[in-house]
């Protein structure tokens, strides 16, 4: 085919390639047929990604190496304290979980509580500067699939959109193309939080003006839509603006997860 095209001259070749590129973009945007091309090229480029994230990883490693003895002791002490507090809380939580399960049994409802979790580390790779995508070092060979939810120790970060055998791409909840079903803890109102392209802001549009919302309200995943497991913290309301003309309220919220600084993330495998 290449020689056939070359015989027709450069303009013909260029026109063919331009049309081909446009067709490819449409297919890539609308359907998922090109996912296999993408993941194969990505796999071939995996060493490159590791190479690129080497300075950051190396920096951390050197930092670890030179941490002084006293600092380590202090950190150890602090961690022990934290562990003590957490295990004390956990005891209470276990009792509550048991009680919750018993009550659910009484109600005849069933909901799995334990989710399977994979710990992954970020690869520091910059992608498209106008989007909020990150790359992690675990992929389909570790059991990660498209659509799995990703959290850090503070809240929901996003979900997996591309998987390669050794790495995966995650779209953050702050990406302009991302929306996550949420629920206000206090009032139980359900809504959808959209990304705005900034790691510090989410937006909830078109809430009814009568909705019971206050600044500092906590938002958790509602579990609707089935992508995100329910009851993980998402954001905290920072501002409420009313559109009196149309009778809607739009709400700004700050994500709980540290979208721009977490280095370790947890990928949640939904339990069947």
């Amino acid at each position, binding site marked *: 085919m290449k020689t056939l095209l070359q015989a027709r001259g*450069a303009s013909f070749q*260029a026109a063919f390639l331009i049309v081909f*590129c446009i067709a490819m*973009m449409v297919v890539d945007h609308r359907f998922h047929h090109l996912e296999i091309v993408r993941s194969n090229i990505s796999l071939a480029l995996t060493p*490159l990604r590791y190479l690129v994230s080497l300075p950051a990883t190396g920096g951390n490693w050197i930092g670890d190496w030179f941490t002084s003895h006293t600092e380590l002791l202090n950190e150890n002490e602090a961690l022990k304290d934290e562990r003590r507090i957490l295990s004390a809380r956990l005891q209470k939580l276990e009792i509550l979980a048991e009680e919750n399960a018993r009550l659910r049994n009484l109600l005849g409802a069933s909901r799995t509580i334990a989710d399977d979790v994979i710990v992954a580390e970020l690869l520091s790779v*910059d992608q498209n*500067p106008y989007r909020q995508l990150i790359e992690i070092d675990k992929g389909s060979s570790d059991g990660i699939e498209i659509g799995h939810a990703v959290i850090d120790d503070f809240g929901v970060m996003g979900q997996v959109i591309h998987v390669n055998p050794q790495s995966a791409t995650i779209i953050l909840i702050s990406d*302009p*193309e991302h929306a996550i079903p949420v629920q206000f803890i206090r009032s139980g109102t359900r809504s959808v939080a959209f990304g705005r392209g900034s790691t510090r802001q989410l937006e909830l549009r078109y809430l009814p003006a009568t909705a019971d919302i206050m600044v500092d309200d906590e938002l958790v995943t509602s579990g609707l839509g089935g992508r995100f497991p329910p009851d993980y913290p998402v954001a905290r309301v920072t501002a409420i603006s009313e559109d009196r003309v149309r009778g809607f309220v739009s709400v700004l919220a700050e994500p709980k997860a540290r979208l721009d600084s977490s280095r370790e993330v947890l990928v949640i495998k939904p339990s069947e």
Partner: protein
Amino acid sequence: MSQFKYLVIYLSLLVALVLMILPLPDWVQIYRPNWIALTLIYWSMALPKHVGLWFAFITGIILDTSLGTLLGQHTLALVIIIFINQNFYQRIRVLSLAQQAIYILVLLLIDQVVVAWVEGILGRPTPLLAFFGAPFIGMLIWPWVFVVLRDIRRKALVR
């Protein structure tokens, strides 16, 4: 041997790709010059027989994959600027580096327009500063890219 001597082209493009995805602070990121476009333009001027539209196409697909953009977005831009370059390189090659740099600015802006159009169709407008910033920086570093790649080419004896 003849295959082996073109290795330097692939290596330079690999370095350009690393520079494209190397993490930078957010405020510098939008000024990141299009290293791949600069490298590709150089090789298409120096070795137009070897580095043509298909070369640009394959490089573009790899770039789109690494940047997480739509497959075809940067590819389309690269194919278009390499096509333009194929029609002009004989006249541009003899100009001084400063004059070449202005021509490079035009090519990089065309590249940027194509990428920004696709972004716009997808509903993600490109900020004005980012639109003009990166091609402008690309223009400023062109003389340097040109000299470095020319020296590499001469060392590697690619003609």
